[in-house]
């Protein structure tokens, strides 16, 4: 009895998580003239065909991915360095530092967006530039991703035995090498979590990008601009493709891990 209840509960949770995605995928195959999102008109691949013909969507997607990759990589490197620095601080400065880092996370996005825009606009004017664009988007995205990376790396550093690093140096390892050989592998899970988080946050972001994008267009902004007419099922098709790619990647990675584990056990 108890088991059945647990099963139903789990089922409901998964239904809640995946039903929207399922609906999205189903309607990406909808054959309709009016781009309807509620009336089923038969199976077709027309939205996929249209998606791959649509230069504007693909350009926006490309911009989004470039920004996500660059800002995730940059904020991971900066955030890891910051976390190492913060970790070795004394108690009071560390607390102050952590509060300063956490503040942008609790700050409403719209405030961050507007203030970044004002800053960038005046900076661009001072430097004699004409327009915000890719550069300001990079800066903005790195800024709001940083605290998340720091927050996911710090706990790993605190878990680590500080004697390990000293032991490596005792055994004749120069500091830089000791860092790469001993510290980095220890905190790697935290870094990867931070990286993935930064990547998804950056792809998702609408509010901050909206204010700092200048004449560059990212995918969320493009999708939002469709709302006067209607959001085309091309977006369903695009989301389905992204979902499928991520899923296949996860399966491949998991399969490889399982293989590695078997080999090391066997």
């Amino acid at each position: 009895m108890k088991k059945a209840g647990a099963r139903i509960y789990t089922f409901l949770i998964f239904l809640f998580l995946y039903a929207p995605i399922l609906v999205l995928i189903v309607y990406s195959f909808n054959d309709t003239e009016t781009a309807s999102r509620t009336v089923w008109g038969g199976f077709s691949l027309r939205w996929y065909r249209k998606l791959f013909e649509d230069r504007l969507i693909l350009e926006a997607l490309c911009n989004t991915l470039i920004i996500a990759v660059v800002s995730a990589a940059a904020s991971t490197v900066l955030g890891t360095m910051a976390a190492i620095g913060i970790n070795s601080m004394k108690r009071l400065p560390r607390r102050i530092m952590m509060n300063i880092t956490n503040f942008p996370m609790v700050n409403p996005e719209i405030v961050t967006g507007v203030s970044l825009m004002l800053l960038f606009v005046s900076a661009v004017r001072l430097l004699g530039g004409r327009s915000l664009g890719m550069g300001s988007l990079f800066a903005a995205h790195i800024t709001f991703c940083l605290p998340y990376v720091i927050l996911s790396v710090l706990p790993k550093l605190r878990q680590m035995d500080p004697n390990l690093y000293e032991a490596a140096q005792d055994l004749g390892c120069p500091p830089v090498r000791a860092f790469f050989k001993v510290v980095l592998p220890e905190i790697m899970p935290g870094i990867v979590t931070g990286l993935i988080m930064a990547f998804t946050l950056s792809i998702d972001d609408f509010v901050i990008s909206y204010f700092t994008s200048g004449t560059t267009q990212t995918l969320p902004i493009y999708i939002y601009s469709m709302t006067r007419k209607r959001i085309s099922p091309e977006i369903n098709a695009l989301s389905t493709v992204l979902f499928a790619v991520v899923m296949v990647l996860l399966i491949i990675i998991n399969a490889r891990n399982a293989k590695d584990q078997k080999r090391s056990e066997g």
Partner: protein
Amino acid sequence: MMKRYFIHFNLCVVLCLALCLFPVQTVLAGEAQALTVSDKEDAAPDRGITINVYNWGEYIANGTDGSPDVNEEFTRRTGIRVNYTTFDSNEALYSKLVGGGADYDVIIPSDYMVSKLIDENMLAELDFSNIPNFQYIDERFKDPDYDPGSRYSVPYTWGVVGLFYNTDYIEEEITSWSALWDDRYAGKILMFDNPRDSFAIAQFMLGQSLNTTDENDWAEAAALLKQQKPLVQAYVMDRIFDKMESSEAWIAPYYSGDAAILVENSDSIQFVVPEEGTNYFVDAMCIPVTSSHKEEAEAYINFLCDPEIAGANMNYVGYSTPESAAKAYIDQEMVESPVHYPSDEILERTEVFVNLPESTAKLVDSLWAEVKMGGPGESIVLVAIILGFLGVYIAILVYKRRKRKRELA
């Protein structure tokens, strides 16, 4: 451990690179298509100039569904590259322009926004010797109320607001805006989710001008909208497509060009322009004063006025063209449809929006907020919610303090 994560990261990068390659492929595909529309001239050499164009979302033929890729064709003919971006509302465009940080060369706002931008000296006067195709624009669209003398703008598309209704549920023939106040259709009525379009409907019923500056007129219109509110299912914009198609709603006002597709695809959905008259709107091409490539921007405007290109755009967008010459390139069905091209008799009864003075605009905003929020009744609900939260918070505090005291004792 480390190897595993490294692979993970690697795959991410590969995925991104692979996705970035898509546009390259489609650019190549697009080029082949563009040839069908051009005059078979050779591609112009790259001039090293990129103009920034800011237009409504999905408002230009972009190479999908067999339409030509207009921006690509422009680059091919002139050697000027186009950075094409899109917005969702006139207000979004305005805030982008005022906020600075964006340098646009061609923008396509609607009528009242054009007049607002003119009033604020944000538009450059056009040099019509660079826009010879302006000759194709019909006389009716020259010298409009929002841009007297046609000095700052060239119309791109136009349309009227009308009523869409489902004949399966509404059997009588609708001829008046008062159908939106008919309590037989209570809960099945949709309204615009923006102040000027909604007020316009009430104003036509009251026989006022859309651009009145008399406060009493606006208050009267607001009262009429408040009276309608209990009957309205929702204030929506693009969701009317889903709601009308699935019969969730029976009657809704919308822009003719966007919603024409509803009529074409359903036998039971009808379109009518009510007899009281209606708002006719124009989206027009302008150049901001800040543009650094004015000549190239004018070339772009001229290009979009080319009847062949205008025709291709209208086929894709579904709005009406201000150029009679372009009709030769538009699907015959569309040209003959009264949804797209209402009769002159109907157009006699239309009025276009112009910019309202600051004080009136503020009044309209606050009246609209009142209409949508309802009267003081709803602010009482808000206060009750806040008080409720406060009560829970205090209860928790009291409970904690008691618990601590008990533990100490």
